[in-house]
């Protein structure tokens, strides 16, 4: 393979492109899948209540709806919450959930929430922590946050009391504050006409309903919708329907990239190996004449094909990893991390390249084994 360096390099480059695309797209899909699996886990045992059909953007609700929801049979507890964008303008272009502000009833959440968040520094927020926040790991850089420092959110200063550990899902991109603080921000961004009919101390835009043991959250959501007017309750199925299924598209893209790299890389390996074998027909004949067995010839050419795959794989993975690193560090400032280059994607990309090389090299290697010794030796 080193005899024809340019040809080998071009073949390696063919695989490099495929594996590069696979690594980058795979890292993107990995991030999406993790966000979705985090969301699936979060929504799995609860019902979310909002003022509109959307799971994330809700019409304003009044906190006085809470007792009505609590009365529904099967409800264990209800926590009022406010969820809004971190920036004043809602991020139109965002990968995964946009950077957000979340306010909630911490005491209830702490008691009933099964999706536990841990802290790399400081502590969790308490209900009476007005003017204080905890910050998600992806927003640390953007807000220059550290425990004890002050961060500016929507023009107001807040003291940072905790920095969350990475969860690889939505909380990483979230600033958590007291419900009252979040209500003020949310009230401020409501249209004039809505504000006129709302109260800043009672306005919220969602409730998290914790379910009694043994109760199906999807059935409970239906029950809440029936019994409590002017709200929309969603169980875990709604999340699945709205978000999780969308990941299928990313997985399909990833599969498409893998397939293209398989075809392009595989064909170039077959071409290179076939050319190489036809140039070395005489050499193969000599080797067979002096005792090379099928396995010797096969292993020689399959090793060569596997090495081409390995070099292409390593190079493609390296370029992909570099791209992921550069883009992630560029977007980290804005709290919008796009890629997650996991160990499994890395291992799969390189193994895939090697296996691709071996499979593509199999036909030429088999052809080499079948070469007639006498004819091969006579070949000039």
């Amino acid at each position, binding site marked *: 393979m080193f005899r024809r360096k340019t040809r080998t390099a071009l073949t390696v480059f063919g695989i490099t492109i495929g594996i590069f695309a696979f690594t980058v797209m795979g890292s993107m899909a990995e991030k999406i899948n993790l966000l979705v699996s985090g969301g699936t886990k979060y929504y799995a045992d609860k019902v979310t209540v909002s003022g509109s059909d959307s799971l994330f953007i809700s019409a304003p609700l009044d906190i006085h709806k809470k007792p009505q929801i609590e009365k529904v049979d099967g409800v264990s507890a209800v926590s009022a919450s406010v969820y809004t964008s971190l920036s004043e303008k809602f991020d139109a272009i965002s990968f995964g959930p946009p950077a957000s502000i979340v306010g909630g009833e911490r005491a209830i959440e702490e008691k009933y929430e099964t999706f536990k968040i841990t802290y790399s520094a400081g502590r969790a927020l308490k209900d009476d922590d007005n003017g204080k926040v905890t910050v998600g790991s992806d927003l640390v850089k953007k807000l220059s946050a550290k425990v004890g420092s002050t961060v500016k959110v929507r023009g107001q200063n807040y003291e940072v009391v905790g920095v969350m550990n990475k969860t690889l899902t939505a909380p990483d991109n979230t600033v958590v504050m007291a419900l009252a603080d979040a209500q003020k921000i949310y009230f401020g961004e409501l249209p004039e006409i809505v504000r006129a009919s709302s109260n800043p101390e009672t306005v919220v835009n969602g409730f998290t309903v914790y379910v009694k043991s043994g109760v199906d959250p999807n059935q409970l959501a239906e029950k809440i919708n029936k019994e409590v007017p002017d709200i929309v309750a969603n169980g875990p199925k709604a999340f699945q329907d709205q978000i999780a299924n969308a990941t299928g598209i990313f997985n399909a893209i990833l599969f498409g990239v893998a397939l293209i790299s398989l075809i392009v890389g595989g064909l170039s390996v077959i071409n290179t190996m076939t050319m190489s074998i036809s140039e070395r027909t*005489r050499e193969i004949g000599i*080797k*067979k004449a*002096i005792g*090379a067995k099928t396995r*010797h010839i096969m292993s020689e050419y399959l090793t060569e094909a596997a090495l081409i795959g390995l070099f292409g794989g390593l190079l493609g993975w390296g370029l992909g990893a570099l791209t992921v690193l550069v883009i992630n560090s560029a977007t980290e400032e804005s709290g919008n991390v796009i890629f997650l280059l996991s160990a499994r994607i890395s291992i799969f990309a390189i193994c895939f390249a090697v296996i691709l090389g071996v499979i593509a090299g199999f036909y030429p290697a088999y052809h080499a084994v079948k070469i007639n010794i006498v004819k091969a*030796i006579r070949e000039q």
Partner: protein
Amino acid sequence: MAAADTILKLDNVMKIYILGGRKNAKKAQKAIQKLQKQYEKLSSKGQNAPAAAVAKTLRQAQLLFAQEKYEASYRAVTGKGLKVRRRDRGAVVHALNGVSLDIKAGDLMAVMGPSGSGKSTLLNMLGQLDQPTAGQIFLKSQNVALIKRRHLPEIRSKELGFVFQAFNLVPTLTALENVMLPLKYSGIHLGQRRQMAKDALVQVGLSDRLNHRSNELSGGQQQRVAIARSVVNSPSIVFGDELTGELDTKMTADVMGLVKKLNRQGQTFVIVTHNPEVAKVCRRIIYMKDGRIEKELKK
């Protein structure tokens, strides 16, 4: 009559066993023992005439067996009735037309003849590079047809050596690595094969060229490496196909001197050549014409 039939059958079976090569030697011995018992049985019953007939067959079988065993130990390769038919542009060509020859251990034989006489074809058949259309080949008295095809590479790496006209070294490998190749295919571990290859290269006078690639060696040196590669495994026989065809007179003498030296050490060589100077070095010369052995000269 029945007893005579049995004797005849035993006789034929024994002949097949005895002449069938080393693998059948045990069967031949058993058949002889059976004949011995039959003789004793007939004698004890007082059936003298059939006993005498069996005794005669027994003596013949024992003699044949002993003779075959003795000759087999000196036989490197034997070809019997070798025929090769090929189709060339629709016409059937008889590349070999019933060639039989016996190459004894220690022979230095030249095969001469005009182009197309079947010299190289014969070499390819005897060297297990190709299969004859008809006939049998015995390698150290073992019928090659009875060897499974998958074991042929092992036979080629351990029992047979080849030297070709165009040297045919692997260009990306050094002289040492080229000589190590058949040892690698024989399954000899790295340290031992390195030493064996070094010894072989020293023997052919290339101790100072171990790490040179073929493009860094002269034609004569390349052919010496090829000879070292062919003898490194101490094969039963080395086949040379026009091994001096691309060498000048001085290098030819040089290479044939080496062949003669290795032959004196016991290595068997069969060399196909057009060159009478090469044939002169050999003790046996067979001349081929139209796929047959025309004549043989022995010195």
